[in-house]
């Protein structure tokens, strides 16, 4: 028995050692690289210049290791050296290094001495992954979603149809009962009571002069109200949503990607205008973002968005294939959405930088707008309301120190509104 136990034990040891061995091998293969870690490293360090499947500032990196060893006979050590100090490799006279260097316009790759061998291996592991087919997945997801939607719709329709049939049956039953009863009554010679003929309601109404006058007054007043309402919205373009030459989605940029408004509209910080970003600002990112990989809908497909990016390239004169500017640009004629009349002065920096007002206060939920529209009415009443309600942001602003102390004492408040600061004076906005 002892032996048996022993055997069992040795068997266990064997098994566990096998497991340990297996575990070790996985650990060893981890030495080969962890694609997940590699992905984050790649995005942090490499993505500015490299893509997996597309030549950009630098070459496409999918299966770079395999390619190098197959075509050039270069091993991983070479890659390590190159990543850490490419210019060193070039200077050493390495032929392939110099070839790459010249092919990419004599711009040496940034050195990454901080990346360890493991890090580089992880990145290589990521680059060695097979290309996924995200489009298919998305399509599947979409069809699944639409399936779910249709089943729901079917059940609702069935229930509603059944109810309708039920009601029709009920009405039919009642009608039949009524008809039968009348037939009985006729058969039994029971007289049905005739209802006395009364003046119709509308005639009585017309004959009642008081009511007519009241109604007329009401009618006049309400029409005056609506005419006034109509006239006062002339020139108010709330909800104005023009078609723009390039379908720019604020939802994708400000919403999904969380880009700060003032990254693109930088002059809002210092100038009276928020500024429509010049195309070089767009190209800061879009040099490397040449396709859309986010959520799509039937209306706005990936192809649609990619087409819009191509429009940007055409306008900026960027040749995506050659990765350089052609010099033939076509400035974009955007349709201006927020139009203040000439006689009203508005300064963005006053509101954005000094007062610290969020862009959304006036422009609405821009981060949810697929197509930009005018959120606020931009009427004077709207401006003034806000000035009456909003406190002046005086904290840490030496300009306000004295005036705020004196004025708040004068008005007996802790915090002054913009109106109390003088924000309702005509000449502050009209000159």
């Amino acid at each position, binding site marked *: 028995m002892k032996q048996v136990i022993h055997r069992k034990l040795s068997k266990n040891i064997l098994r566990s050692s096998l497991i340990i061995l297996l575990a070790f091998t996985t650990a060893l293969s981890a030495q080969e690289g962890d694609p997940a870690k590699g992905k984050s490293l790649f995005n942090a360090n490499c993505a500015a210049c490299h893509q997996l499947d597309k030549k950009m500032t630098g070459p496409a990196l999918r299966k770079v290791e395999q390619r190098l060893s197959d075509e050039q006979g270069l091993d991983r050590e070479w890659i390590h050296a190159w990543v850490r100090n490419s210019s060193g490799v070039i200077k050493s006279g390495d032929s392939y290094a110099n070839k790459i260097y010249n092919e990419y316009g004599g711009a040496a790759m940034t050195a990454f001495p901080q990346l360890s061998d493991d890090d580089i291996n992880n990145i290589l592991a990521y680059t060695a992954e097979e290309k996924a087919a995200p489009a298919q997945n998305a399509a599947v997801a979409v069809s699944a979603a639409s399936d779910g939607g249709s089943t729901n719709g079917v059940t609702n329709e069935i229930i509603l149809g059944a109810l309708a049939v039920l009601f029709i049956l009920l009405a039919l039953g009642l009608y039949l009962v009524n008809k039968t009863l009348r037939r009985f009554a006729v058969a039994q010679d029971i007289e049905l009571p005739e209802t006395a003929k009364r003046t119709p309601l509308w005639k009585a109404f017309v004959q009642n002069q008081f009511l007519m006058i009241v109604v007329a007054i009401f009618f006049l007043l309400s029409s005056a109200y609506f005419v006034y309402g109509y006239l006062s919205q*002339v*020139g108010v*373009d709330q909800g104005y949503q*023009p078609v723009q030459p390039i379908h720019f989605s604020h939802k994708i940029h400000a919403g999904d990607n969380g880009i700060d408004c003032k990254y693109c509209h930088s*002059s809002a910080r*210092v*100038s*009276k*205008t928020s*500024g*429509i*970003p*010049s*195309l*070089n*600002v767009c190209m800061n990112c879009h040099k490397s973002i040449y396709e859309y990989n986010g959520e799509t809908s039937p209306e706005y497909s990936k192809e649609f968005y990619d087409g819009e990016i191509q429009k940007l390239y055409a*306008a*900026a*004169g960027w040749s995506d294939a050659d990765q350089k500017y052609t010099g033939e*640009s076509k*400035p*974009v*004629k*955007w*349709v*201006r959405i927020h*139009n203040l*009349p*000439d*006689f*009203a*002065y508005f*300064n*963005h*920096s*006053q509101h954005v*930088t*000094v007062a610290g007002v969020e862009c959304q206060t006036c422009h609405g939920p821009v981060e949810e707008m697929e197509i930009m529209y005018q959120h606020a009415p931009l009427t004077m009443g709207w401006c003034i309301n806000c000035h009456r309600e909003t406190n002046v942001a005086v904290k*840490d*602003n*030496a*300009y*306000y*120190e*004295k*005036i705020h102390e*004196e*004025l708040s004492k*004068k008005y007996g408040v802790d915090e002054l509104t913009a109106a109390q600061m*003088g924000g309702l*004076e*005509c*000449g*502050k906005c*009209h*000159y």
Partner: protein
Amino acid sequence: MSSNKKYWKSVEELNENSSIVETLKQNEFVEEIPTDEFLGDKETLEATSTTRRDFLKYIGFSTAAASLAACEGPVKKSIPYVVQPTEIIPGVANYYATTIADGFDFASVLVKTREGRPIKIENNALAGSNGNANARVNASVLGLYDSLRVQTPKQGDKAISWGTFDAEITKKLKDIAKANKKIVLLTQTYASPSTDALISKFKEKYGNVSHVVYDAISESAALDAYQAKYGERGLADYDFSKAMTIVSVGADFLGDWQGGGFDSGYAKNRVPDHGKMSRHIQIEANMSLSGANADKRIPATPTEQKLALAKLYSLIVGGSVSGDLPEHIDAAVKNAAAELKAAAGKAVVVTGLQDVNAQTLVLEINQVLGSKAFKPSTPIKTRQGSNAEVAELVADMKAGKVAAIIMSGVNPIYTLPNASDFAEGLNKTELSVAFSLKEDETSSLVNFIGAAPHYLESWGDVELKKGHYALMQPTIRPLFDTRQFQDTLLKWTETEGSYHDFIKSTWNTSILGGSSFNQALHDGVFITSVYAANGESSKTVTTTESTLKDKKDRTWVGGVIHGAAVGLGIKDEDKDEYLSTTKTSTVSTGSATINGVNIVSGVAAAKALASSAKSNGLELVLYSKTGMGDGQQANNPWLQEFPDPISRVSWDNYLTVSKSDAEKLGLENVHVATGALDGSYADVTVNGTTVKNVPVLIQPGQAKGSVGISFGYGRKLGLKDEMKTGVNAYELYANFETVQDVTVKAASGMHEFACVQLHNTLMGRGDILKETTLEIFNTKDKSHWNPIPVVSLNHEETPVTSPEVDLWDEFDRSIGHHFNLSIDLNACTGCGACVIACHAENNVPVVGKEEVRRSRDMHWLRIDRYYSSDDTFEGDNEKKDGFSGLFGDNGSLGGFGEMEHPADNPQVSFQPVMCQHCNHAPCETVCPVAATSHGRQGQNHMAYNRCVGTRYCANNCPYKVRRFNWFLYNGNDEFDYHMNDDLGRMVLNPDVVVRSRGVMEKCSMCIQMTQKTILDAKRDGRVIKDGEFQTACSAACSSGAMIFGDINDKESKVAKLKEDNRMYHLLEHVGTKPNVQYQTKVRNTKEA
């Protein structure tokens, strides 16, 4: 009896038997009208479905639809940059230092650009010298957007490319050079080291080349005198801030004398400080700005001036001079000499007589006086023309000796007195090229026009004074296909690189001495270290650097805030002493060697001058007007509409005649209506040349026996029809002498002037313009010379400033900013730079001569000019106070009538008036729609979009500063000035709305500028320093007369000025409590 003449329409009618005539008589229409075609066919008519009613329905519908569609706003496009330049942020102004050097005006300026468009010229506080923009320089930005500019190089009338232009001309030039014929470069004064270098390169390449410098209005005599004495061509520099006694003989040094730019120095000593101020004696013929500002003005004909100067010389330096002067002038000259001697080092004498002897005498006198204001060591370089060379050139051309002439920056056909000779000579040349902004009188006659860029599109450098350099840089990409003269010279001399590179290398090798070019470009100026290399100087250098640093800081935090009114309050006597050591040494060595010779020559000059002083009757004095200068900006509507500071006439030049001469000659002026003045015409003949129909203006203060006409008008080509105003006085400029013997003959007809101020005298109303003498100012109490008006309250005299007599409740304005503008009547010279600056900043429209004549001028800021009807304003006051009863000798009925007439030699005062921003504003209470209201910061607001145009406010304004838009002045062909084309509208300030028809407008105290300053401070989170707040006028004021600021900042200059004894408010007795203050004018006279 009525006539029996037969009228006929065609020869055929004369034939009595013609059948055609008979048929024609019967038939109204020669051919039958095809009525049947559309009425005869009944079927078609009935078949058409469009009835009359339908037609009306369609009309009605389309009208309604069109008006409904009109409710939709227009679609506005916004086009951002493809690649935005890093230095441009839309909505934020950039400032560039540059230099204007158009041959007449030379100044270092700061150019404000918005979105890449230059929109305003400002003073360059870093400049030190010539940093002040006058009215013309302020207006020059509009010249950039002139729709009549030459837009491409031309051969005759044909537009060609620059390539063809170069090829054709160099080919011809080479041929001419091969034949060793003469090539002449005729240019304006460039005073540019780089251009000089280029021209010598050009000379080297083409051999027989001569360079003639031509100033339209010549300073040749002064240049010759200086050259003879100091061996270098230039004009003696003067620093009037060092002078306590100034005697000027015919020099309008506050105007364009020797290039101008002396007013800020002059104004410094005009403000009484510790009981002292400068004394200014002016002997002159025409009433000039300098004469108007003088403490004592002696009207004298040029002949008398010459004698007076010779006498002055003999009294100060020695020698005797024959010749008789009228007694009062003689006495005045003796007085002046005594005062000059007493002041010695603090005295200065200047003259504007274009006579080498006169100029020599002045140099002598100043040297003998040891004047500190006299700076011969740093000669002014901005006039270099030589009369003799120009005369020789014209003669050579006429003789056919000149094969090629290349002109740049000049318009000799317009400016030469013998223009026909020049035109004749031009025909004899083989090649004529003109670099010009316009197709003007000259460039329309030449073979090739080189389209020249405006100075705001050009590179350049200028040596304003010896050792004082300035740089010109482009502030906008060239609007048209233009190339500057210098770049072309580079091409023609086959030199690599642009003119920019050329300037850079010139500066780096010979001027900068190791300093940074970029720093010089940033400052716009560079002063060579030779002029700052002494013991005392090091101190001064550090102070300049500290202001510079300060300035930089402010540039960072909120755009450029130019350091207040230039030089204001800088009392440091020693500040410029850094020059003194070098200067004295030069002067002493100079006088040691040739001293004796000089004195002798001086005496000889005095004698020559005295003997040349002969006149035959009337003398003509030619001058340049503040607005128009030499006339190259004649197509500038701002300058045309700018009322002359003295005559207050816009859109014209005229013959100024004294009242007694006018009576003798039978010339008259008639007041027709407010703004409308009619004047006789006269024919003016000089040397056989007659200029016909010169309008006559009777000018108080014009010396009897003299008349004056200004240059710059009467242009014929290269300008819009509206701007073709006045007569060309250059035709009378024989031999480049500004003084001519003249005959004046009355001509028939009356000329219609547009004159914005017809009421010339103050009528003793001392509460409008308070004036006193230095003696009274120093000795008497404030209540004597600047009393606060009183009103009777319960039979007690109560000052109007006390709250009991006030109709209104006082608001508490002690919190926040409270803006005040102080205007010092002592420092204001009336130069008008503020008027144009206001135009540019506030988009003030130009209305044209007809409208100005209807008193509808739109100037937000006007400079009222008052004459005294007695010898002095004080005399007026006394006279008025002395009236008793209606009739009799002291009766007010006749007395007031007399007081309407200015004296023969009146005292003159200038008073800038804009909206007074009353705390208790009469305009605000009468506005039915509350379009005008008061802000807490002291500004009277005007909401144009609210205004319905009742004009009640204008009627209720005691200061008459509100302006009504009678018409739409922009985009209206009836007002074809700059706001009628896209190009001209580029000058508009985007921060200020362009007003429409039917709206009242007025000075806003530049609320857009104060708001901007506040916003910048808020954004930086800092307290605003004094001097940061500016208005367009106060920033433009180079004499420091206008000080703007916050009176709640007790340390501010304006708060202190408010407590000054000299402070008063305009029409204080009305009780409007204005926020514009005036400082009583003090005149340094003993006589009054």
